[in-house]
């Protein structure tokens, strides 16, 4: 399980972020005392840091610069500032990503998991039980049989696979699809899911995706 440190001085925002990340299955630690943030960042043994830019005392960009000198733990900058200057600066100081408030929660989670994956360097193929999922060729294979998935189907299947055993809401699916420049409407999403099911049943696993009424879908 990945550990995340949140460096954010607004108490409410920090609490809600913790809840969001814990619900998504991360171990979360936060900072309560803002006198020696840098020391706490250095001592924390985590996989990723969410760092606010506007902090009492030293600001996030200074902290980032100092921290990057001897550590390459991924850092995502969070900020309410809306100019490109901060973004350019942060990225040049070695931030892995930069997200402006108020962030879309689903996209925040996506970015976090993208940064974590990047740092682990996972391969381009993944296994789902005995099905081989290849993101490069956009196909799934089982017992020597292959099914080609469209881009949309692949995005949906990948998302379900990332959250195997958990419910993924239609809303989250939409956010992810739209984030990949696939602007589907409600009907089109249903069509894509049923096509994906058909392709899975060709491989003999037609019951892999379960529908939870009013909640979403679940990959068993």
């Amino acid at each position: 399980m990945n550990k995340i440190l949140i460096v954010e001085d607004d108490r409410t925002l920090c609490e809600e972020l913790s809840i969001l990340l814990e619900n998504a299955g991360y171990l979360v630690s936060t900072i309560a005392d803002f006198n020696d943030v840098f020391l706490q960042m250095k001592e924390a043994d985590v996989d990723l840091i969410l760092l606010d830019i506007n902090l009492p005392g030293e600001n996030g960009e200074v902290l980032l610069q100092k921290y990057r000198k001897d550590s390459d733990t991924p850092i995502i900058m969070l900020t309410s500032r809306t100019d490109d200057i901060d973004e350019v600066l942060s990225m040049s100081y070695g931030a892995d990503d930069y997200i402006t408030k108020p962030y879309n929660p689903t996209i925040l989670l996506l970015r976090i998991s993208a940064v974590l994956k990047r740092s682990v360097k996972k391969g381009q193929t993944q296994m789902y039980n005995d099905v081989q999922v290849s993101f490069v060729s956009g196909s799934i294979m089982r017992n020597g049989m292959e099914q080609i998935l469209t881009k949309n189907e692949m995005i949906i299947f990948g998302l379900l696979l990332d959250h195997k055993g958990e419910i993924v809401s239609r809303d989250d699916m939409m956010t992810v699809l739209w984030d990949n420049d696939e602007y589907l409407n409600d009907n089109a999403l249903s069509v894509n899911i049923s096509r994906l099911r058909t392709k899975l049943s060709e491989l003999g696993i037609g019951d892999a995706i379960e529908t939870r009424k009013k909640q979403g879908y679940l990959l068993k």
Partner: protein
Amino acid sequence: MNFWDYIKDRIIIYIMKTTAIVISIIFLSAFNVKSQAIIVVTNILVVTVLMSELWEYFRKRDFYIRLNNSLAELDKKYLLPELVNYPEFYEGKIMVNALRECDKSMAENVAEYRRQNKEFREYIEMWVHEAKIPVASLRLMCHNNQDVGRKMTGQIKRIDDYIESVLYYARSENPELDYVIKEVSLKKIFGSVAVRNREALQILDAAIETDGLDINVLTDGKWIEFIIGQLMANSIKYCSPDRKLFLRAWADNNDKGVIFHFRDNGKGILKEDIPYIFEKSFTGHNGRENKSSTGMGLFIVSNLCERLGHRIDVVSEYGKYTEIQIVFGKNDFYKMS
């Protein structure tokens, strides 16, 4: 300086001087002075008066002609005191002194307003950043408590949009420039605008089609995101009730630059309204139908475009469609720096 006006202005002096000469002649003849002597004295007096008047006229004329010419040539008339030199005559010196004094006081006054304006703008910027923190908390709360949150998300998005528009209004109205011009992908910008408006678009069951957006333009990423966001917000606001909203965004690339097109199938804009839609507080026909129109959105958009050096055009047919075109010039960046 008109010669006859000058003479008219001094007519009293001439009358007095002439009277003095005439009285002198009468007195001289009364004392039996020889007529030759009277003629000589009269001549001396007349010539002196004429010479002094001409001298007076010409020294003033030079100064005032230069003053009027400077005034006519200046496009910023208030800079006149900087151009005026001290003349040789006394009244002129008093006037120039007064002008310079006025100028100084005016400059101080303007500086004071500028400072206030700057402070206000800084306050707005800070306020916006502060206000975004609770909005961020609210969004997360909605996500963490899905059943209550679902209804609120839309409203929170509206609050966020209004906050954003205050920020960009403050920015677009101020001469201080704080943008970063770099290569920005239109596809990425359009994507993030679409994601931000996804809920509203899905409620309308809108369809979106994009084409050729995989292209980089030179602009400020945050500003252009706001601009396209405003265009999309307008399409959502003024969609036609009798057909499903259909948005099309595409880009043309020619040797002059990149043209970004954004077209909807909404209400469209009346022909007589089109010339005014980028003007401040103009709401037009559609605005009268929709109470929440402020007339600010497109005004801010066109202001920002001007700042960034992009041209913005609109093509529309009432009841059919509205298409906004933004032209990203190829060399604008170099011209500006």
